């Protein structure tokens, strides 16, 4: 396992819709609506299926383990998780 597992709190009532310019997300717990870039939206969509750690996310998104990601790719993944956590769309278990 690579770091904590990340999840979308099922009690927060998160709804996601994919568009050509990104993902819109409704977070019922706060009432906020967000527009996410396509990559961050894809990360959130993965977490909505089930909680994942960094390694599982890397496999789901890139088809290889986190250790095999280029440093820029890993940074992007970590930044996406941090961005989701900042607006309470994802949390570390």
């Amino acid at each position, binding site marked *: 396992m690579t770091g904590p597992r990340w999840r979308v709190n099922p009690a927060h009532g998160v709804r996601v*819709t994919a*568009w*050509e*310019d990104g993902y*819109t997300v409704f977070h019922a717990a706060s009432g906020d*609506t967000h*527009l996410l870039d396509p990559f961050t939206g894809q990360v959130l969509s993965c977490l909505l299926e089930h909680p994942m750690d960094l390694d599982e996310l890397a496999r789901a998104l890139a088809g290889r383990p986190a250790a095999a990601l280029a440093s820029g790719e890993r940074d992007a993944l970590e930044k996406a998780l941090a961005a989701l956590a900042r607006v309470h769309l994802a949390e570390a278990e």
Partner: protein
Amino acid sequence: MNLRELPPEDIRRRLAGPGLCLRTGPITVRIRSRLPAVVHTLALLYADHPVVAEEAFCDFHVRLFQPAGLRRWWRPQVQFAFDDFVPFKPLPHDHAFPMLEWGLNWAVANHAHWYLVLHAAVIECGGRAAILPAPPGSGKSTLTAALVQRGWRLLSDELTLIDPDTGLVHGLARPVSLKNTSLPLLRAWAPDAVFGPPAHDTLKGTVAHMKPPPESVARMDEPARPAWVIFPRYVPDAAPRLTPHPRGHALLEFARNAFNYSILGSRGYDTLARLIASVECFDFHYSRLEDALATFTRLAHGD
């Protein structure tokens, strides 16, 4: 019975007494006022709207009146009340009819929560609706007024009511608010259109309302299926230009500008997402009404 069929003395009696009950699409409003300007302009601009029996249920009860006090002797004012709640500061007496219209908009936007209420104009042609969200000054009402005088049906120039269950848009077919340079432009564009008296020096400048076309009022109970969301923008001397507007951004803009999106919560988001998924979204820049009409006509014909 339509308002035009009611004798003037009966209109005055109802307005001064139990209230004149008018139906504007799915909303019925009871209006009370003794102000002659309101009586006259209401009779002129709502002539084709159905009058409901005095004892009927009404969604909203509104009243326009002159506030008491000595001030009324040298600077008469008008006040709007919703039930007995007064949501606004009084305005100069000759702003009475615009105040009624603004008050009715406020009432619908703040109370008709069985709809998702978007801040946008909506018009229809061939069974398909174009929703026109835009900030003040973008030319939204001018464009709406121009198109409904040339074959498009008016649902609203200000409030788009979306049924969360069906996704259909419901119309009010109320007068279109026009201001400043739009007024001579529309008078020239549609010489037969009927306008109420202008109110000068309002917060928006000179304002007058255009009577909705009778056929729009006759069909106001007919909801429409949304087909387009078009963000219009008047750009001086610009050639007409219709370009795709990203739909994620469109949803976010509606979420920011809808009147009751936050009240409806998840239901509001689902309604909005369904709307955006079912339409094409465009930005539209224009300077001439003829160009705008040609663009909208092509759109309606699927060209």
